[in-house]
């Protein structure tokens, strides 16, 4: 203790104060990223349930997975979701230079393509309902609908988030809070592309070879 008191010059810092500045944007994006990882584990549970139930025995005499999925038609959904993700991602490229019109245009295109994706999915569901392949028909169909629709529900919430952000950007511009929301939505929207890769391969392509 005494040795420290007699030491000449400034005391060495116990903490580098210059590096502890609060960063509201990084704090929010890391927090949201951790939420998304927990969301990924929800999908893991749904994929696990589907993996168990995706067998002809669990069709309970009803249609098997190979009879209800259409990988070629679902490829249109793949193009729609990835184009939407690209449009939103390019909106955040426009954000770098504060190009408000570019950001709004990218978000608008992302919304339109996202709605197209959901429209294709609902159309697919409607055609299955028309032939009696409803979720309560068998355990296999329950797992199929829940897995695919959960991804679709995420897409709907993403679109809703974009619709809420547009008036905020028009009213307030690129404040710290709005920029953090735009970055979080980029993470969320790109995450939907990753989940769709798993859904398309695990449900549609794997189902076609069963």
């Amino acid at each position: 203790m005494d040795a420290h008191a007699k030491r000449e010059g400034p005391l060495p810092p116990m903490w580098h104060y210059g590096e502890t500045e609060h960063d509201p944007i990084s704090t929010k994006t890391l927090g949201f990223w951790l939420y998304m990882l927990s969301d990924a584990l929800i999908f893991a549970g749904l994929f696990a349930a589907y993996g168990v139930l995706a067998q002809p025995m669990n069709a309970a005499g009803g249609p098997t997975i190979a009879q209800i999925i259409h990988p070629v038609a679902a490829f249109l959904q793949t193009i729609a979701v990835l184009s939407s993700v690209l449009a939103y991602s390019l909106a955040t490229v426009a954000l770098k230079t504060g190009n408000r019109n570019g950001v709004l245009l990218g978000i608008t295109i992302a919304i339109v393509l996202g709605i197209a994706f959901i429209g294709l999915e609902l159309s697919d569901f409607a055609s299955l309902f028309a032939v009696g392949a409803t979720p309560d028909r068998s355990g296999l169909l329950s797992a199929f609908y829940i897995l695919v629709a959960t991804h679709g529900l995420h897409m709907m919430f993403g679109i809703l988030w974009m619709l809420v952000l547009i008036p905020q950007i028009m009213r307030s511009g690129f404040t710290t809070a709005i920029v953090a929301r735009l970055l979080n939505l980029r993470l969320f929207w790109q995450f939907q592309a990753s989940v769709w890769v798993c859904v398309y391969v695990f449900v549609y392509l794997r189902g076609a070879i069963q």
Partner: protein
Amino acid sequence: MTDPHNPEPDPLRHAEVQQAGAIGYVSGTILTIALLGVALLITEQKSMQPTPVLVTISGLSIFLLVSQAILFFGLDVSRYNIWKSVSLILTVPLFILSIGLTVWMFHALGPVMAMPEMPGMPLQPTTLQ
């Protein structure tokens, strides 16, 4: 960088805003659509046995997910992304284990339930039916 009359820094100069790159996003999109198209062709041709097809399309999907982590999410070991990268690496085994172990635990369910009924040994329907 910081205006003395306005202590809040410009949010558009933040590293996570500036990390956005059109080349990475366009490359990631084209790569994903192209490889999923290849996986679709392999599946539709039906010229291979199911197991090799399954292994091939699973490999393509893993490659795509890693590519998206880099090209879309921009994950790396920089100061702004290191903890995102670490948390993802720690979560991936949980994701794989939760799916893999569950499917493995029940993998015998299909063949067992599909057994023909034997005299004196009637198979009872399960709740899955």
